[in-house]
């Protein structure tokens, strides 16, 4: 009931996802730990796997319950047409374009200071390329990227600058998973 309102998933989707949650929960204690996620081979080999896993866990915690699981997954729900014109008074749905972008921003911004610094960008780049590119090359890629996006000249990317860079990108499609009913 509440989860449905908060996340926008349908009843049958929530049932299926609960089934998935329990099958991942090897300890059978109603929560997932980081190890539970890492047991998924396709996730373990994903270069950004650890960051993605971290996104599920609230600050400083080691366990995530079903509600938290669903809240994070809700970011990847595709945006339906009838939702776009919903009332402006309610809180923004978790899967709005802005929230999807915010989620991506948080993957970069480790220290949560609302800015992506050169170091934070380098960290993510390093995760994605492994050992195949040298520090200097990676550094120049990072510098170029920041230069392109940085508008207020502070050598870091704020959320507003992040949004601007991605304004032509179809975020809705790229950050959505097609759920079956």
């Amino acid at each position: 009931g509440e989860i449905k309102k908060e996340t926008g998933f349908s009843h049958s989707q929530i049932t299926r996802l609960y089934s998935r949650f329990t099958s991942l929960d090897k300890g059978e204690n109603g929560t997932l730990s980081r190890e539970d996620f890492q047991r998924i081979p396709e996730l373990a080999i994903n270069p950004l796997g650890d960051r993605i896993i971290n996104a599920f866990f609230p600050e400083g915690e080691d366990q995530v319950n079903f509600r938290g699981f669903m809240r994070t997954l809700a970011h990847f729900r595709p945006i339906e047409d009838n939702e776009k014109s919903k009332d402006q008074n309610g809180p923004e749905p978790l899967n709005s374009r802005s929230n999807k972008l915010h989620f991506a921003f948080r993957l970069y911004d480790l220290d949560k200071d609302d800015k992506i610094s050169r170091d934070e960008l380098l960290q993510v780049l390093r995760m994605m390329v492994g050992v195949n590119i040298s520090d200097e090359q990676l550094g120049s890629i990072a510098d170029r990227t920041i230069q392109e996006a940085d508008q207020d000249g502070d050598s870091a990317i704020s959320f507003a600058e992040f949004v601007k860079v991605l304004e032509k990108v179809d975020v809705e499609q790229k950050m959505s998973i097609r759920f079956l009913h």
Partner: protein
Amino acid sequence: MLKSPAANGIIERDETPMEKEIEHLHRVEFEFSDIFYFCRKGFEAIVEDEVTQRFSSEELVSWNLLTRTNVNFHYVSLRLTVVWVIGVIVRYCLLLPLRFTLAAIGITSMIVGTTIVGQLPNSSVKDYLSEVVHLTCSRILVRALSGTIHYHNKENKPQKGGICVANHTSPIDVIILTNDGCYAMVGQVHGGLMGVIQSATVKACPHVWFERSEIKDRHLVTKRLREHVADKSKLPILIFPEGTCINNTSVMMFKKGSFEIGGTIYPVAIKYDPQFGDAFWNSSKYNLVSYLLRIMTSWAIVCNVWYLPPMVRKEGEDAVQFANRVKSAIARQGGLTELPWDGGLKRAKVKDTFKEEQQKNYSKMLVRNGSIGSLSTGTESD
């Protein structure tokens, strides 16, 4: 590019390759949106992944009146519940004792029979009698499970001096195959009842049983198997190259060890019909005894066995490629999907080499588009 979802799937996975998705965005080398690709793939894997679902029982599309498969179905009607109760009574009070008795008879006669035959000196009479004993006991055991087996293409049945290779779903696979022919088993020496059976049968017929310590030495294993195969009068060896039980919806990586021995490979595909009973042994969830109990309280074990034409290693083909070729043939015949993943992932963590491969591919794309030059390994790739 969408992959058509399984009947019970939760999501439709997007199979667009990395290159297509990230590349066309590129004006400079790197884009912030590059992470979207990895992000989405990660989430798709969290919701539904190809591997972990193979280690739990297949979900049925329609219920077959067994509580154990009643995961997603809800209370429907009183009539259905009554039918289910009758089913329970029939299964537990009628079928189970019957089957249990048969199984006991089967195992006892196997031990007694093979011990007696084992006393005889080696001769063709002994081999014949050994075959009779093995086949008869197998047939009793199959009846004990209410097994209905359809064998296809019997002309391709494994011959002496060959190696029989099959996909693995449960320990029952062995009985299914020995019901129709005699094989030399390969396996580890166990204690308890299993050990008694093993030491009895090996006197009648040259099975290859290894001590636990010997299994670790791969060369020793290969050597012994090679010797067995070279002797053309010996029965074909039965091997399950996946190394572990998979839930019969797919075939996972075949370990190359079996394919390095040489000789002719006779592939066999085994597919169980899940409507009558779930044959898969989830060894992390159930031990052997409770597994057998579940099997004996199912409706029946119905399966199809296909004997595929024999295969040999081609010139210039290495063991891994040969293993994959055999795996494809079995998967295609049995209607199972093929996965490159190792069955060992049931218990062990995945190797880092796969992650490194993805990182390498992504790096190639960055370098290709930009003007940075070649990768730091110094090679001029593609």
